[in-house]
């Protein structure tokens, strides 16, 4: 909880402040879209933590799912395609008392933004990243995504995908994320817990949400996942064991694990950036008034 302690208020105090809820703008997703489950889970998680809405900033990229910040009442930044993470990092470093949540899709995060995905995790920035992974490009009407399965026929791959998909969980584990989980839009309560624990986790929390696209992905549907998912929590998985987490991350077939793969404690980027030990950057003094001795190095 330490990472969010400053932004999390006591229940009594919190009750007086507006909590994150729905905004006046209604989601524009297709009826039945998996993203409804994800937004419900995020809202539930933040409410449970009693973080006032003004201390939450939700950042997204571009894609169907990246419209999410518009539908909640916190602060938000709807950035360009693939860049939610660097924007989110900048916000975090400007004010590390804010709860920063980045959201987006698999194309946004693992395609155009994949470089940032890896680097943000190795830095262990204290924030939460929720990807709405539907294994397809929805907003551009159905092309293959980095997580589309081998052989899947899409508009851009009429003969089937011939590239191996990215495994976001394994990639996160390899990149040094300190909290790695997978949720499923078909189980909102479970996903809300994963996100809630992710926000409370001190460090980079990654939650890959299996969030079916009901319009363009006719393979990885709600039914597809309902038949396959099982919870790590009830299958004897030890989330402190990185090797075991890798092993589970490779399971994708008849059985698909959801839940917490891995969790560890490591100093965050904000812990190690000495300038931030003096408090949120946005509240520190700025400018060089009275610092004339600084010019001596040029004399």
């Amino acid at each position, binding site marked *: 909880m330490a990472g969010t302690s400053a932004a999390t208020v006591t229940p009594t105090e919190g009750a007086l*402040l*507006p909590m994150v809820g729905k*905004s*006046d*703008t209604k989601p*524009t997703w297709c009826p039945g879209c998996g993203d409804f489950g994800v937004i419900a889970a995020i809202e539930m998680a933040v409410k449970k933590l009693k973080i006032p*809405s*003004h*201390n939450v*900033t939700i*950042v997204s990229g*571009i894609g169907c799912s990246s*419209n999410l*910040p*518009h539908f909640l*009442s*916190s*602060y*938000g*930044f*709807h*950035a*360009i395609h*693939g*860049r939610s*993470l*660097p*924007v*989110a*990092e*900048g*916000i*975090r*470093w*400007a*004010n590390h*008392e*804010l709860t920063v949540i980045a959201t987006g899709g698999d194309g946004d995060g693992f395609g155009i933004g994949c*470089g*940032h995905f*890896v*680097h943000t995790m190795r830095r262990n920035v204290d924030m939460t990243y929720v990807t709405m992974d539907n294994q397809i490009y929805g907003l551009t009407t159905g092309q293959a995504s980095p997580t589309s399965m081998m052989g899947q026929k899409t508009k851009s791959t009429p003969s089937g995908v011939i590239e191996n998909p990215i495994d976001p969980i394994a990639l996160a584990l390899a990149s040094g994320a300190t909290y790695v989980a997978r949720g499923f839009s078909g189980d909102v309560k479970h996903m809300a817990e994963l996100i809630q624990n992710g926000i409370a986790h001190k460090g980079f929390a990654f939650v890959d949400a299996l969030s079916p696209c009901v319009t363009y992905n006719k393979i990885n549907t709600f039914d597809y996942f309902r038949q396959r998912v099982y919870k790590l929590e009830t299958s004897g998985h030890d989330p402190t064991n990185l090797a075991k987490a890798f092993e589970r991350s490779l399971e994708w077939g008849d059985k698909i694990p959801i839940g917490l793969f891995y969790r560890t404690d490591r100093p965050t980027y904000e812990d190690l*950036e000495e*300038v*931030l030990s003096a408090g949120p*950057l*946005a509240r*520190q*003094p*700025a*400018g*060089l*008034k*009275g*610092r*004339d001795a*600084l*010019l001596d190095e*040029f*004399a």
Partner: protein
Amino acid sequence: MKEISVLAGGQAGDGIASVGETLSKAFTRMGLHLFGLNSYQSVIRGGHVSFLARASPDRVPSQGDACDVLYALDQQTIDIHLPGLSQGGTVVHDPEKFALPAERLPVGTSALGVPTLEIARKYTNQSILQNAAGLGATAFLAGIPLDLLQRTLADSFGKKKGEVVDWNLGASADGYKFAQEHAKPNQHALAPAGEPKLLLTGNQAIALGAAAAGCKFLAQYPMTPASSIMHWLAAHSRDLGVVVKQAEDELAAINMAIGASFGGVRAMTATSGGGFSLMVEALGMAGMTETPVVVVESQRSGPSTGLPTKTEQGDLNLMLGAGQGEFPRAILAPSNPAEAYRFTVRAFQLAEEWQTPVLVASDLHLSESYGTVDRAEIDLDVPVPPIATVEPNGHEYKRYRYTASGVSPRAIPGQPGLNFIAGSDEHDETGHLISDVKSGVPVWVAERAKMMEKRMRKLEGLARTTDPPVLEGPEAADVTFIAWGSTAGAVRDAMRILSARGVHANLLFLPTVYPLHGAAVAARLAKAKHPILVEGNYSGQLGRLIRAETGLEIRDKLLKYDGEPFYPMEIVRKATEVIEHGRN
């Protein structure tokens, strides 16, 4: 103008830059102004490097055309620089390293063989110490007092003490004394001339200006010639409370800076053309979300990887057009370190005032060359007002409220009751997108146009609040140069040379390249007898902008795209030619 130029040349790894920097600092401690040109290649060891220090009691706007004392560590330095040696010039070299036959020396020049290796061997078997001996001899010829040289050299080691420092001091004194016994100071050697000056590179001035303006966050990816901005701020990060983030790429760098600015701090990124090309999309996001951000674009020779260690002014078109669609921006172009400091401060103020990206256009020649300023020219007392311009007042808050100026009250995350969303999609006054289910619906079609107009109105404000063109030199002149950025330095030298020859020349300098201040430029051009565009690119990009904004074409152009900076005499020759041909 009384002046002396000293050039040290050798191979990368020879320590040429430190010889040049020590000489430069000693000159400025004599109260002299200076221009220091550090010329190098894109290799870490080997390859020719040189450092030219040109000093004078007067302002030194460029590297000039001559070299009075040439310290050559290798034969290649002789081959490249000997033709530039002035009348009365002296070559310092070590005959043990290479022979310099007297017949190779231009008439009226001389050579001083200094046993630098022999001196070095007195102390250690490391040949690098030859530098110190050569430095000593060169300093004597340049008129630098021995005690000042020794103090400056000792300072260059910082707090380091011990035998290495002692060896360097010893060898430099030996070299100095050898020269004293075997030669006279160069005829151009200068006497001390008053208050010591500050010596800094354009990039150091930019970094200092950013900190003074209240910058708390820099994200940058290494790229020559912008990297030393990050180096200076990183070295001072803790002391000044500035977070410096080396990002994974330039995409991340600018997006981090925009995020930090949105989060409530003044933020900057810096790069060269290649990196700026990657930042283009995010620049538009800053424009669209009305998030202030300062971007330093230090140009080098392009296209593509181009000449990574050579200068150019070839990115103006890129800076003008960076980003899809239209949004307000300003481009400020300093010509020397004093301006680099002031313009960077101003860039932060303008970005803040108009809530839009502001570019500082530098180039390798400004970023990496050394120049002097009087201490009084660097005013560190820059007001740093709070970033949020609105407090919760119980009323509905509209982040993108329509206003006459186009600027809307700004809140930052963490302020209760002002929650808003910044959208890279087109949005309404609250920030919510009107790009999907609303787009094409008549009421929102009108709203889109209104929001565009609100943003673009800020361009009028920028035109009003940025520095207008400056006319330097006499009101009436035979030739009028038009220049921007570092090129103005060589033009200022050229004007002085022309004036000594009885030719009146003036300079129309554009501190703000965009918005252009077209009316002022047009008024000036209308009065110009022989306007000459001087620009470091192939196609005359500023000339094209001027033509676009004023309808006036500057037909006489001096354009350079060989990677080298302008030299004053090139400009003098061009002016003479234009006047002789009488074209206007």
